[in-house]
């Protein structure tokens, strides 16, 4: 009996991610959601600039590689041209919350009917570990060698909280993938974010608190632990906005 298989929405290309990086898990969860909803044939994904830049080789659906931070704008174009298709972006913290903040906020406030998978690991991975907009206060990175000094570098941006302040977006949830329970929750959230789009509900963003063992200078297991001890306290998990649930309560 076969108990485990690769989702169809993933290609056979070997992933280039570092050992212990959680991008692999997140890719899988996205692909499972696509499989379960049976939407691969009409899905178009938008890859970011950052570690997931080559996601277009890993997802088996049609893919577009966007310029740094512009994925929500590209996705807007795709969705407006093809409202019947399913459009998702897959972005890191530098891409989404720094250079692409305007695109993110405005796609959210237009309630674009797209799904955003936002991977927050508090660092720029691809370029070798620089300070991200979500790097924690005091976090040592290549460009904050003495620890992030909030007096000069400001505070981390809490994307889920910030976007939830907008009237428009439909669904915003923060999850993590550092243990089995969290992975299961993340899966549910991602599935829901795609389902919302299928049902025409509007903008869904899932922020996934993730790891970067390589640039955090930790072993994979230490990194998973660090998510619990440092990341989640600053970035509490949970549903920040769910207009569907609000309606049920009404």
């Amino acid at each position, binding site marked *: 009996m076969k108990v485990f298989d690769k989702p169809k929405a993933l290609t056979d290309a070997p992933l280039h991610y570092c050992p212990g990086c959680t991008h692999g898990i997140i890719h899988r969860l996205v692909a499972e959601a696509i499989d379960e909803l049976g939407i691969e044939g009409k899905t178009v994904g938008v890859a970011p600039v950052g570690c997931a830049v*080559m996601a277009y080789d890993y997802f088996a659906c049609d893919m577009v590689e966007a310029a740094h931070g512009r994925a929500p704008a*590209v996705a807007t174009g*795709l969705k*407006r*041209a093809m409202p019947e*298709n399913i459009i998702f972006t897959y972005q890191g913290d530098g891409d989404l919350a720094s250079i692409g903040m305007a695109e993110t906020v405005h796609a959210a406030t237009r309630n674009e009917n797209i799904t955003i998978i936002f991977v927050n690991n508090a660092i720029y991975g691809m370029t070798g570990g620089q300070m991200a907009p979500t790097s924690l206060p005091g976090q040592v990175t290549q460009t904050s060698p003495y620890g992030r000094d909030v007096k000069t570098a400001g505070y981390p941006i809490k994307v889920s909280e910030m976007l939830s302040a907008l009237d428009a977006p439909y669904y915003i949830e923060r999850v993590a993938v550092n243990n089995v329970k969290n992975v299961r929750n993340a899966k549910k959230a991602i599935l829901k974010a795609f389902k919302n789009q299928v049902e025409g509900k509007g903008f869904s963003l899932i922020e996934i608190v993730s790891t970067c063992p390589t640039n955090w200078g930790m072993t994979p297991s230490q990194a998973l632990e660090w998510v619990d001890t440092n990341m989640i306290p600053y970035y509490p998990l949970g549903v920040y906005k769910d207009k569907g649930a609000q309606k049920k309560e009404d």
Partner: protein
Amino acid sequence: MSNKVLMKGNEAIAEAAIKAGCRHYFGYPITPQTEIAAYMAKRMPKIGGTFLQAESEVSAINMVYGVAGAGYRVMTSSSSPGISLKQEGISYIAGADLPALIVNVQRGGPGLGGIQPSQSDYFQATKGGGHGDYRLIVVAPASVQEMADLTIKSFDLSDKYRVPAMLLADGTLGQMMEPVSLPDIEVKEVEKPWAVRGTKGERKHNIVNSLYLNPEKLEQTNFERYERYAEIEKNEVMYEEFMMEDAQYCVVSFGIASRISKNAVVEARKQGIKVGLIRPITLWPFPKAVLKKAAETVKGFISVELSMGQMIEDVKLAIDCSRPVVLCNRTGGMIPSPEQVLESIKNMAKEVK
């Protein structure tokens, strides 16, 4: 009365784009091209199209990138400072071999510059603008009718070669009204097997991309693209010759400058100077051959531009500097008068025998 209507150049672009089957427009307000956005905002919702005022020019061009990737006709428009912002997206669109139309209704620069007409984005439009090895098909209308006709032509060329096109106009052409005729045209649907519209489970996934980490592959991709550019240079050059039959002197100018130049050429002819005009309609590909041929008989060239002299470099290159080429210009939003151009012609006739 003819079946023509009076339209602003900007409006003619917008209506022509719709006639050409463009159903997606993304823009951001900037003078002197905002009429295009306003027109699209009015029309698109009524014909099932998209009008979206983006949060920035950067976003607008990336929305264009998205629609272009899906293989639908799409455009954006802006004016000089806004076009600078779009350069990133333009480079990506070129690098991903996507068709799209970018309209630049130029104003004076650099920086925030001014809002009056200019041609000082010639370098930016024809030599790159964004990073990397790429070209745009650049067309330069000189009348409101051409604003419409060349919009349609740009969409066709862009689809045919998978090269983004830029319509390079200026504030005068954008703002002025002239009679224009806009008949319905049959839109040629071009097969776009590369488009990302979903695999439907029927084929391997398409990827719209400009990233090639393998330098050999990137080089090959650029080589292949330049082969298409060579085809464009061979097949798609457009220009107008005016009073060139027996011309001993040649004015070269495009867009609004060519209209001012025509007045001067006509006046100079009245005064007995054998002068003609060559008007590049495509700025890239630049009409090198006709200029080179003209240089066999013409004694000197005058490049008339609303800039500090940008096209003049291409004129010199086209004729291998075999004849004197002088500049007659105003810049910063100022426009040369026909008298200034006439003066320049007379000086050349006096000095270059």
